[in-house]
């Protein structure tokens, strides 16, 4: 179960795709971190990731965790965004047989999961084919 705070603190990353760019080496980290894994720099500026990219790899989840059972089957992908940042997200609005590595995708704001009929709703981005 998601606690409110655990979800809420990721809001900038999930809602606005905010990442941290290391001011010394320029490496973009998503989600942001405190120490640059490349140059050990400690100063970052907030950047918003581009909303388009290409599909690097994917799978179609047929056996899902309990909270996602109603969504199965669903595709999860690694997407290389236009600035080179790689993210993981679901790939929706297409049939599994339409998916091809390298295909152009865009990010859309979607509901990720709800805790039953009464719980909190979690939102973030999913990739959709760019058509």
């Amino acid at each position, binding site marked *: 179960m998601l606690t409110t705070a655990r979800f809420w603190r990721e809001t900038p990353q999930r809602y606005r795709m905010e990442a941290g760019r290391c001011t010394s080496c320029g490496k973009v980290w998503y989600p942001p971190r405190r120490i640059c894994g490349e140059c050990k720099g400690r100063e970052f500026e907030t950047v918003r990731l581009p909303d388009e990219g290409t599909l690097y790899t994917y799978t179609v989840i047929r*056996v*899902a965790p309990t909270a996602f059972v109603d969504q199965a089957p669903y595709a999860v992908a690694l997407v290389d965004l236009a600035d080179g940042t790689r993210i993981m997200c*679901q790939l929706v609005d297409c049939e*599994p047989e339409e998916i091809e*590595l390298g295909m152009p995708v865009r990010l859309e704001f979607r509901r990720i999961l709800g805790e039953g009929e009464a719980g909190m709703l979690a939102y973030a981005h999913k990739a959709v084919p760019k058509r």
Partner: protein
Amino acid sequence: MRDVAVIGVGLSAWGELWDRSLRDLFVEAALNAVEDAGVDSVEAIFVGCMTGGLFAQQEHIGALVADYLGVAPIPATRTESACASAGAAFRTALMAVDSGNHDVVLVGGVEKMTDVDGGGATAALAAASDQEYEAFHGVTFPGLYAMMARAHMAKYGTTREQLGLVAVKNHENGSKNPHAQFPMKVTLEQVLGSVMVADPLRILDCSPITDGASAAVVCPLEMAEKIAKKAPVRVTGSGQATDSIALHQRKDLTFLESTAAAAARAYDMAGCGPGDLDVVEVHDCFTISEIMVMEALGLVEKGQGGPAVEAGETALGGRIPVNTSGGLKSKGHPVGATGVAQIHEIVTQLRGEAGDRQVAGARRGLAQNMGGTGASATVHILEVA
């Protein structure tokens, strides 16, 4: 630093064990290891367990097992590195002994996985991924490895059939292991026709859900020769390494950097290389894992894991037999216990006690254990003393 030997190994029963609890499992494995070693006391315990909390609502595993072994107040510590928890426990035990802190140490691992339903097990295992940026999106462990498989297939031309042949080989080996949870042989057609779990991985590409425990007794080599019932097996190399927890941060999704780094350290310490091994146990949680681990250990060149399996190089009687036990695939995969169960197999091989699956004249073996999608890895090299 003192040389360390393994003087006893033991397993509990493995499988869907409805009548056994987490504590029952570990006590059973520990008693078998202590009996095998021929010792009547240990000074400390290190026990691997991935997520007793999520699988069985039980944490504080160290004290629990010490209590139920009747050995309190000796120190007992649980280690956790996801599915490499027991590999990490083994390395910790080595350090406790080689440093001179302890002499006779019991090490092992345990996981009780069937006290939750399938969805619960999937969610518990997914806790070893990045909870906020992987599991949050509904990805599962088969799903993460499936993405790695697809990337490996795209980059190197690894085929769906080559993945399947890993399962065929490991079930063939497992059919010769009385301890295997799924000792049945499978054909390539069966693998390729089995239920899809996460494209392109099917159920017969996946290791099973297993209740089980493993244990070993380690002590200084010098002492081993005096107290052990059987010929001691020397631990000559030990390495452990980490990598980014989330796949999206990996520099190369098709290569297991942490396994390569752990192996480099273990080879260096043992003064040997991948060409000097007689038998290897690897973490084949999925068929693609075995192929990628072979490449990271240097058993084959990058991208050559699939063709090597297809050519039979890793089968019993091949150039370098891999997973003679049946691997996680056939033998079973109680996640927190697997690392020391691999040590169990290598020790069994080096003692010449592996029966129908014995690698003739095996003198040096390697065990590789891995957590998450490879964010944790341990590599140990064992040799006939």
